């Protein structure tokens, strides 16, 4: 175990230098980086905000099932199927029918089925059909139908969340899908996520609806911005979808912050027609079911440009413009998890982490030297090499360093010497019975090998499981611990062994004390 070929030695040091040189990249000047790689700091160290959003698709599903009513009724009529007791209950359509078998056949036809489309990806229909008894049936979304609705709502939401966050202008946000219903947002450096939370908390569905007592579409009782009770027609004159731009502006006369908007061609037409037909009436501007304002229509607006006023502060006008520009979210978003760390706390954590690393490191090095003298020195060199390689690998992977991650490094320092301790203790034992020193070292290394591997693999298993199941900062701990084990094995078994061999082979005849 003490004989190294020249190629072996070369290889060991090449690997060591190649990997540990990467750790130096973290100290280079940001502006003229040679290779732009470094260890990223987690949000708990650099400060920032982590938000986990969940889409709430219940209202969307209600809407979607409602939209199936007319097509299904039409299908029934076209095929002369008599139905009665048609109602919607718990997102299910229920009705009685004289010939359920015929309906089932039509309902599940794969060809040109607009009522219940076949989703090729999932090999499933969008809707499901259940016979309650001989004549009563219910229609509801299939598992995959719901999945499709959720998926498209989630994709759309991610896009809109991204637009809103980009518009606010935070640095390097991360926006990712998490599972089937969630969006993960990371905003490094953000101290107070209050504004972003407010912006993401609004679906921003904008409607223009007439104030009207009687409407064939029904009315909603809403309260205006001045506390006035108004009856608002359910008919939507125009919605936010037709907006192509919105900007905050200040109206000259009263110096009042407002939002000016520009409509697309279709929107301009709709808006023009509605305002022409209803001069003198009031038009309510409704955002997420609440009236922003309900001004009088003084004259037809056909230019496709308009303005919303509503006792805004300038910040409110800016935010409303941003929301309208970015578009409406298909469903409301709930913040199900939030973690925010201020930058000064992050700095304190880094400081504390580094100080405890240095102190722990010095204590261990000192102890090892006292205990094993020259071989302690070798173990310490291996330990330093270990740290350099650990940071090097973290840099190559561009891993994220968290506070528990720093703890993982410190723990590696404590546990890394174990491999060398195991080997040295074994050699000590061998020296007692073995006359040849070289032979004692040789068998010591080979006998300790299995134990060292066994012992480290168990910790590696723990680290891998932590990485797979842990979240956020804990993952950071698992990464440093896991990589630490690998670098430990390398430095103890190759680097330290080679250094040991140099000493032992040189002192061949003398007494070697360990």
């Amino acid at each position, binding site marked *: 175990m003490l004989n190294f070929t020249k190629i072996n030695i070369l290889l060991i040091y090449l690997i060591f230098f190649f990997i540990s040189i990467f750790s130096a990249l973290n100290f280079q000047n940001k502006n003229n980086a040679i290779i732009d790689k470094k260890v990223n700091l987690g949000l708990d160290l650099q400060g920032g905000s982590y938000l986990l959003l969940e889409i709430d698709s219940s209202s969307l599903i209600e809407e979607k099932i409602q939209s199936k009513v007319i097509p299904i009724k039409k299908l029934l009529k076209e095929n002369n199927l008599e139905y009665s007791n048609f109602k919607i209950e718990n997102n299910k359509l229920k009705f009685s029918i004289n010939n359920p078998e015929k309906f089932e056949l039509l309902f599940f036809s794969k060809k040109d089925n607009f009522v219940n489309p076949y989703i090729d990806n999932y090999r499933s229909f969008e809707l499901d059909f259940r016979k309650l008894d001989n004549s009563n049936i219910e229609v509801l979304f299939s598992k995959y139908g719901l999945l499709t609705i959720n998926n498209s709502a989630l994709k759309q939401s991610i896009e809109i969340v991204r637009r809103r966050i980009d518009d606010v202008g935070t640095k390097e946000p991360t926006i990712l899908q998490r599972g089937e219903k969630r969006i993960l947002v990371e905003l490094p450096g953000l101290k107070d996520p*209050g504004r972003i939370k407010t912006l993401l908390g609004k679906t921003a569905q904008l409607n223009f609806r007439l104030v009207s007592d009687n409407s064939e579409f029904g009315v909603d009782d809403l309260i205006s911005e001045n506390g006035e009770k108004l009856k608002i027609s359910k008919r939507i004159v125009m919605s936010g979808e037709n907006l192509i731009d919105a900007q905050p502006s200040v109206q000259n006369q009263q110096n009042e912050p407002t939002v000016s908007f520009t409509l697309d061609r279709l929107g301009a037409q709709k808006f023009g027609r509605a305002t022409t037909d209803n001069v003198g009436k009031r038009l309510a501007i409704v955002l997420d079911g609440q009236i922003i304002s309900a001004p009088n229509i003084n004259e037809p607006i056909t230019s496709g440009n308009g303005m919303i006023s509503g006792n805004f502060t300038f910040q409110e006008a800016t935010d409303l413009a941003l929301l309208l520009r970015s578009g409406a979210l298909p469903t409301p978003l709930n913040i*199900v998890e939030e973690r925010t760390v201020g930058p000064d706390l992050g700095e304190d954590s880094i400081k504390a982490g580094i100080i*405890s690393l240095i102190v722990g490191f010095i204590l261990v090095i000192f102890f090892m030297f006292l205990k094993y003298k020259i071989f302690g020195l070798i173990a310490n060199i291996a330990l330093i090499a270990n740290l350099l390689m650990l940071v090097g690998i973290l840099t190559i992977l561009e891993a994220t360093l968290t506070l528990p991650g720093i703890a993982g490094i*410190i723990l590696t320092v404590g546990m890394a010497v174990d491999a060398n301790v195991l080997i040295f203790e074994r050699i000590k034992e061998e020296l007692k019975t073995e006359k040849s020193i070289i032979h004692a070292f040789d068998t010591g290394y080979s006998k300790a090998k299995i134990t060292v591997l066994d012992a480290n693999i168990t910790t590696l298993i723990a680290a891998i499981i932590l990485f797979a199941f842990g979240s956020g900062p804990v993952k950071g701990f698992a990464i440093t611990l896991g990589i630490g084990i690998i670098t430990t094995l390398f430095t103890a078994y190759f680097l330290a062994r080679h250094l040991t061999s140099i000493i032992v082979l040189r002192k061949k005849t003398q007494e070697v004390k360990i």
Partner: protein
Amino acid sequence: MIRNINFVSKFKKANIFSTLLFSLSIFFMIFKGLNYGIDFKGGTLIELRTDVSVNASSIRELLSSMNLGDINVKKFGKDGDYLIKVEQKKENNNNLISEIKKKLSDNLSAEVDFRRVENVGPKVSAELLESSIIAISLALAAMLFYIWVRFEWQFSIGSIIALFHDVIITLGIFSVLSLEINLSIIAAVLTIVGYSMNDTVVIYDRIRENLLKFTKISISDVANLSINETLSRTLITSITTLLALLSIYILGGEILRGFSFAMILGVIIGTYSSIFVASPILKFFKVSYKTLEKEEEKIAP
């Protein structure tokens, strides 16, 4: 030097001691329960700093006037640093944090800085708890499997009992001291599992080796010899690991304190259990060189 301490003679006493601690831990975990943090219980945590020192009770009063439910305010490290915990409410209030901030800045005669805010909803906390339990169970199962592949089943059972011993007693101590269980404690527990296993494996390796070397002596003597032979390694590694952990515990800041405390407990208990729990079990199963013989070729190093 090889110490010659008669560990086996102390096995009986140690086993009574361990069983007692283990049962007490279970008792406390059932009747006193564990103090779950917001990661697992849901709720809001705010770490705040004020520029002039204020009374924790005045913060408590202000918050209880807001009708937030169960509130916990305590000093956290330095003067002027406080930790607020607010119970999970059923309805989701996205503005809760800004409301609390406004209330405190308006009414306290001090500059209030929110240094850290964590808010975990009920669904997410339930999921975090579930995935933590899965992670720990999986880690135990993986260890069991590894040892079963590398050694014989008697060793596997011995090591897994030692692991349970360590995890349960660590959690028991957390229960007695009402220390908070959060995600980083789970990380600590998993690392303890790895560390304790590491220790057990080193002794088991030696026992296996000695069983094959000295076929004439009993498992008690082999265990005693093996523990003594590996003792200095066991102690040195525990010492260096504890040195590193103590350094985090004392200097690493408030956030890592619970984590490093759990690890320190785990290292001490883990070292103890490899000697006094894992080894007696081999004696209990009457493991001898014959147990190993059948598979000797497969496992011999």
